[in-house]
């Protein structure tokens, strides 16, 4: 595919879309499969980004893919730490406690200059992004890096979900008391879900910082990012792998599409400020429409459409 598309499409459309799909996958494992609601996604993404940055800059010769995986593991550790409240609380209360992760990491990476190597403005960037002669700093390089990482991530998650772990998570989501009664160690699997989820979120955070933006600061991982990831799985589809891609396309590309349409059609006829606000209204309206029409996400909508088409001529 890279042969056919421009650097613009690779670098600033496909890369962020893939990265956000991976972040969506992280949260989807936790929320869509294991049933634990979290608003700390941005915080765990920040952990992944800052951990990868510190590993890559402080350990000379550490190849980028390894730094990425280690960064993900550190994020997983942070996820495990913040999963401790899930032993006692659930639902909305757990969501509130996950907010502490968000605010704690935002504070930590702002206040402790060691994490950003005492850079004057608190930003991080990787000076050397090449591995085996491939420079990941170019649009094509970052696209391949992201594509390979995201594909591996989804392959891993797909297998995890088809195995015992996935079934146990689904059991906990559907009714945790019943799961405990049939002998599942609910708490242990909840912690595992937090860990795996944060692993993917951490890698997504590092990719967002280095493959997409190039330079990031903690502001790239604020509460808005957490909400964005949550919206991706709500709109795309909870408990669906394809839903992560659909949600990410919706959240990321629809504003761009609206922007292009309004630039092309209305530019010069209406005030800029007015146009921007109309765009927001349309975007919000579409979100409301899809959530009302299809609470299980667009992935489910497509599924039922396909089922209907498959039996279409001989419905009865």
């Amino acid at each position: 595919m890279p042969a056919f598309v421009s650097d613009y499409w690779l670098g600033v459309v496909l890369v962020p879309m893939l990265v956000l799909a991976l972040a969506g996958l992280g949260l989807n494992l936790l929320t869509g499969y294991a049933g634990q609601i979290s608003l700390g996604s941005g915080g765990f993404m920040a952990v992944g980004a800052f951990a990868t940055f510190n590993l890559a800059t402080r350990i000379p010769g550490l190849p980028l893919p390894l730094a990425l995986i280690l960064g993900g593991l550190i994020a997983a550790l942070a996820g495990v730490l913040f999963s401790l409240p899930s032993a006692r609380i659930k639902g909305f209360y757990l969501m509130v406690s996950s907010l502490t992760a968000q605010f704690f990491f935002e504070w930590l990476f702002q206040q402790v200059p060691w994490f950003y190597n005492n850079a004057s403005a608190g930003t991080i960037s990787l000076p050397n992004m090449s591995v085996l002669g491939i420079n990941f700093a170019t649009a094509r390089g970052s696209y391949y890096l992201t594509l390979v990482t995201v594909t591996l991530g989804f392959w891993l998650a797909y297998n995890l979900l088809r195995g015992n772990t996935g079934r146990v998570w689904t059991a906990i989501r559907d009714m945790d008391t019943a799961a405990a009664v049939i002998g599942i160690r609910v708490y242990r699997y909840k912690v595992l879900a937090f860990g795996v989820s944060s692993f993917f979120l951490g890698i997504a955070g590092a990719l967002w910082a280095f493959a997409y933006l190039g330079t990031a600061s903690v502001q790239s991982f604020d509460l808005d990012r957490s909400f964005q990831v949550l919206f991706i799985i709500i709109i795309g589809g909870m408990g669906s792998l394809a839903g992560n891609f659909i949600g990410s396309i919706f959240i990321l590309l629809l504003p761009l599409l609206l922007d292009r349409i309004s630039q092309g059609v209305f530019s010069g006829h209406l005030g800029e400020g007015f146009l921007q606000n109309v765009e927001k209204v349309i975007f919000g309206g579409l979100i409301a429409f899809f959530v009302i029409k299809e609470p299980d996400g667009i992935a489910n909508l497509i599924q039922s459409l396909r089922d209907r088409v498959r039996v279409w001529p001989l419905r009865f």
Partner: protein
Amino acid sequence: MRHFLMATAAFAAIATAGLAAGAEAAPNTQYIPLPTYRVGPYASSGTLWWAGEIDYFRYINEAEGGVDGVKLDYQEFETGWSPDRTVEVYERTKNGKNGEPVAFFFTHGTPATYALIDRAAVDKIPLIDPAGGRTESADGTVFPYAFPLLFDYYSQASVGINFIAQKEGGFDKLKGQKIVTVYLDSAYGRETQPAIALLAKKYGFQNIQLSVSDPGSEQSAIWRQVREIRPDWVFLRTWGVSTPVAIKTAVRFGIPVKHIIGDVWAGSEADVIPAGSAAIGYEALAPYPGGANFAIDDRLRKAILDKNESNLADTKFFGAVYYNIGLVNAALAVEALHVGHKHFGNRPLNGEEGRWAFEHLHIDNARLAQIGFLGLLQPINVTVTDHEGGGAARIQQWDGKQWHVVTDWIQADHALLEPLIKAKSAEYAKEHGITPRAADAED
């Protein structure tokens, strides 16, 4: 796995659909993309800023027939001040529009400058971020494509201290004084710290840094602390809602407002009007002084405002600080294009030519008088080694209704700050494997 394949197929479809290339005959027009924020938390200041920029570009196009005959094609893109969106806009526009090249890119925000600095160096597009940006990029030998024009963060610190010394009656009077910096805890807020630390060492004042956490709508605890310190001066480096809250709270805790000096981004109407009577007598650094009595304002009134063509929704903001920020930034760009035209001919410039133009930007008082910016803009002299080119600010005082400029241009102590900038840029060069250009590379 089926879902997975379908999603991949969907990508391919979407990715190929939007490809359109339009290469027509190159028109005699310069393309200027403007990443703006008319929505979001900083919209109230942004809206005036873009109005200033657009009014000036429109004035150049309509009243002066373009820059040396080259018309300006400006286009806005909403970003909501998000660096992520600015990156997207940059990538979308960096190759120009319908054959019109891009000579420079206004980032309109320090975080966006940071995010773009490496890309722009590769793409050869100059990033223009007046009174902001990455401070060490003032060293153009390491950062050929970044221009923290006019008034970088170290200069802000230096001018602040120089003004305090002026009020005290000399630098020797600073010895032993307590100067508290109250800053918004962000990249912008921390950026001046190394410079103030250096100045404190030189002049022997006590440097106390206190942070306000974002967004800073409650500050009692900090100002109680300030009160206990009993400082001689307070340097206020906040932005957005944190400024009026700071002024109000400071006055409530009995800190005289006349001993608070605001920084550039804490010195607009939006910062003092909400503080009410507490802000009367408050002074702030003004590389962009407020007011509508400069020569350019009469020309704008005649050519734009009286014809109802202003981008301002409400013309009572004509002459507001943020409007003037837009005017000055647009004028810097227009002057740079003018410099470029003299060298390359009267045609649209590309990014490399744009860099040459900005690196030879020289505006003296005679030229300022000619374009009507005398008093509003300081004399500018950008070189390869100095991408700031200015480094001075006036001081303006709020009287409860409007800002009054109370001093002439106060210059920053460049000789003192330069080694600091050099050290930081050398560090960057080493990290990124950049060999700095020679200072006379462009002569």
